[in-house]
């Protein structure tokens, strides 16, 4: 059974009474006052009982952040964010949610139904508050014990997989050694903000020579969705190890946090391999572009040792604005970086996404396959940098950027930057832009497919090269997701 289904099955099978470990006390906590100053940073750090060095690290980031200005180079357009008008620490709140599914937006329920999400989980996702929810939430909280069960298995192999806060408490040396070593506190406006106020996230350490026995998934941590505004993820693969990490729960959550500024750091030491897969389908806003998440994320991997490999696979269908460039620093000789991306925008969504492949070592190789699909009034930009350092002898890159347009009012843009300081480097870039033709639509519909099914089929064909790099359980859901995100894009 694929890991996700297995987890769902396990979670639902667990008896509520078996629930032993609780975050309940933590969940009771209140939120920091609105706005951001040094006291907010101190508040967050104190709430999490952090050591002095981490507080100093945060404060240092905060002070830098004050000197920085918001980047404006991306092809996205949104009203000025008032950073003093946000809450920077907010544990799950006890606001009055809908009391039953009857009160939930039917459109949202229809989406859940199409994804095949069981009713009980629909209630959690929609934030329904009633007796049912207690059971369901407990079941989800029990995923903590599920994690514990898995953790026993992982511990046998010496794998550490826990929340970031826990890692700070239990493995301070590892955190101290690697935190900010890939994305430094001074990196960019949003990453610096994240460094100052990050709430929690995931921490993974795979010891030398260990092949992680299962795919690690943030699904386990669904209960922390409301604290995900400023997530921090740190994954370290020690020499010769392998890990596949799945981010994101593939149900569309309606999150009230408008701004998400996460940071993900990956460190792959000699001969290690990290495969990082994301399916992101946050609330994209309504048809007129009202609401929706601003997803300003900094993701970067460092192939720190020779022959290391980092592979990013992403499926982006949600968020009002996506600003995201999962990158690889190919520092070790013979190291390999890969980026496979599907970015779908519909309605008024704006996507500015791509990758950076920084070739520093000899014989480093990278591969970029990006598939952008724009529909409605959306704009979809691929922005990528491939660079070869003076010492990156025989660096190789292959880039393929394909854009597919649906309808007359959307835009696709490709902005590749190529910088080579080594004459032996070979960089290839291929780009295509196409439209779903009326003839293709007519051919499919004349065989009995509805217009929406026809679009989904054609788009799934278009993204096939990337789909096959996704772990199995993501692949099937992604195919469904593509159909859902493009609904209403024709006719």
């Amino acid at each position, binding site marked *: 059974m694929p890991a996700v289904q297995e987890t769902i099955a396990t979670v639902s099978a667990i008896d509520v009474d078996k629930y032993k470990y609780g975050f309940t006390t933590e969940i009771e906590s209140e939120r920091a006052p609105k706005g951001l100053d040094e006291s907010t940073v101190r508040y967050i750090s104190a709430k999490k009982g952090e050591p002095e060095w981490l507080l100093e690290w945060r404060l240092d980031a905060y002070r830098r952040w004050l000197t920085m200005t918001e980047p404006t180079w991306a092809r996205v357009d949104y009203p000025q964010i008032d950073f003093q008008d946000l809450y920077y620490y907010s544990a799950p709140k006890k606001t009055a949610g809908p009391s039953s599914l009857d009160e939930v937006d039917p459109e949202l329920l229809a989406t859940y139904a199409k994804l095949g999400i069981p009713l009980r989980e629909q209630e959690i996702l929609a934030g329904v508050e009633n007796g049912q929810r207690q059971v369901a939430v407990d079941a989800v909280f029990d995923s903590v014990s599920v994690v514990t069960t898995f953790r026993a298995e992982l511990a046998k192999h010496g794998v550490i997989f826990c929340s970031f806060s826990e890692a700070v408490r239990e493995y301070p040396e590892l955190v101290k050694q690697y935190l900010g070593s890939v994305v430094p506190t001074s990196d960019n406006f949003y990453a610096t903000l994240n460094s100052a106020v990050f709430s929690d996230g995931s921490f993974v350490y795979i010891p030398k020579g260990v092949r992680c026995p299962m795919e690690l998934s943030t699904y386990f941590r669904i209960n922390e969705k409301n604290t995900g505004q400023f997530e921090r993820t740190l994954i370290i693969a020690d020499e010769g190890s392998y890990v596949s990490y799945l981010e994101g729960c593939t149900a569309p959550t309606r999150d009230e946090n408008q701004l998400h500024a996460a940071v993900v750091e990956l460190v792959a030491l000699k001969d290690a391999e990290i495969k990082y897969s994301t399916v992101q389908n946050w609330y994209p806003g309504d048809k007129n572009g009202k609401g929706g998440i601003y997803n300003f994320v900094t993701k970067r991997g460092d192939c720190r040792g020779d022959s290391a490999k980092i592979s990013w696979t992403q499926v982006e269908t949600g968020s009002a604005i996506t600003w995201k460039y999962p990158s690889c620093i190919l520092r070790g000789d013979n190291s390999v970086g890969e980026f496979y991306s599907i970015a779908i925008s519909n309605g008024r969504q704006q996507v500015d996404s791509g990758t950076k492949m920084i070739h520093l070592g000899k014989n480093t190789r990278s591969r970029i396959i990006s598939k952008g699909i724009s529909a409605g009034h959306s704009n979809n930009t691929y922005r990528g940098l491939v660079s070869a350092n003076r010492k990156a002898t025989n660096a190789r890159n292959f880039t393929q950027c394909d854009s597919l347009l649906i309808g007359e009012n959307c835009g696709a843009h490709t902005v590749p930057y190529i910088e080579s300081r080594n004459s032996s480097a070979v960089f290839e870039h291929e780009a295509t832009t196409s439209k779903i033709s009326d003839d293709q639509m*007519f*051919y*499919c*519909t*004349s*065989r009995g*497919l509805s217009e929406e*099914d026809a679009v989904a*089929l054609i788009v799934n064909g278009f993204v*096939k090269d990337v789909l096959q790099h996704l772990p199995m359980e993501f692949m099937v859901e992604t195919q469904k997701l593509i159909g859902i995100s493009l609904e209403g894009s024709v006719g």
Partner: protein
Amino acid sequence: MLEIKNLHARIAEDGTEILNGIDLVVKPGEVHAIMGPNGSGKSTLSYVLSGKDDYEVTEGDILFNGESILELGPDERAAAGFFLAFQYPIEIPGVATMTFLKAAINAQRKARGESEITTPDFMRLVKETSAKLNISSDMLKRPLNVGFSGGEKKRNEIMQMALLQPKLCILDETDSGLDIDALKVVSEGVNALRSPDRAFIVITHYQRLLDHIVPDVVHVLSKGRIVKTGGPELALELEKNGYADFVDVAA
């Protein structure tokens, strides 16, 4: 089965009139051939019957089993039993032929309120059908029509027809781009589907296809109207004398 009454149609975009009052009755089990010179409206007729929205019906009606289908979209007509074998089958990159076949079969079953076909049933069906048309399993795995030869594309059209089991099959110049051997395979595929409850409209320029698929009725189309109707001998006559006589009649 099919009744076309005084059908007028034009290109939606620029209003060019193409069909100028077509009358045609096709009964179950019959094979009608429609012949005519270039630009007479043969392909347009096939598109209008299938519901392509590049065309507007300005007058007249199309009845299928007594009911007008003008308001139905191409997918609804397909579910009702229409099938168009394309003159130029369209490429769908990245979608394996097999995947497409299954999606089409299930879409029609769904529209008729039936359950989805099981994978073993589907595999068996495709295997049987493809074998008759000399279609290799390799071809079934390739993206639909992408890089297919002319013959492969046409055989693939006939395979889809055989799998979908339509009531009314419209073949738009299925013989174009086929060599003699491929023509034979395709014709045999079509003939195997002939049955008392299924009808065919075969659009072609040339008589040679009608040697293999013998029609019951032959119509000559000129300037968007049927100007002559006869038996199979009419096709032979056309082959000998060309369209000149009939085109003049229409003018």
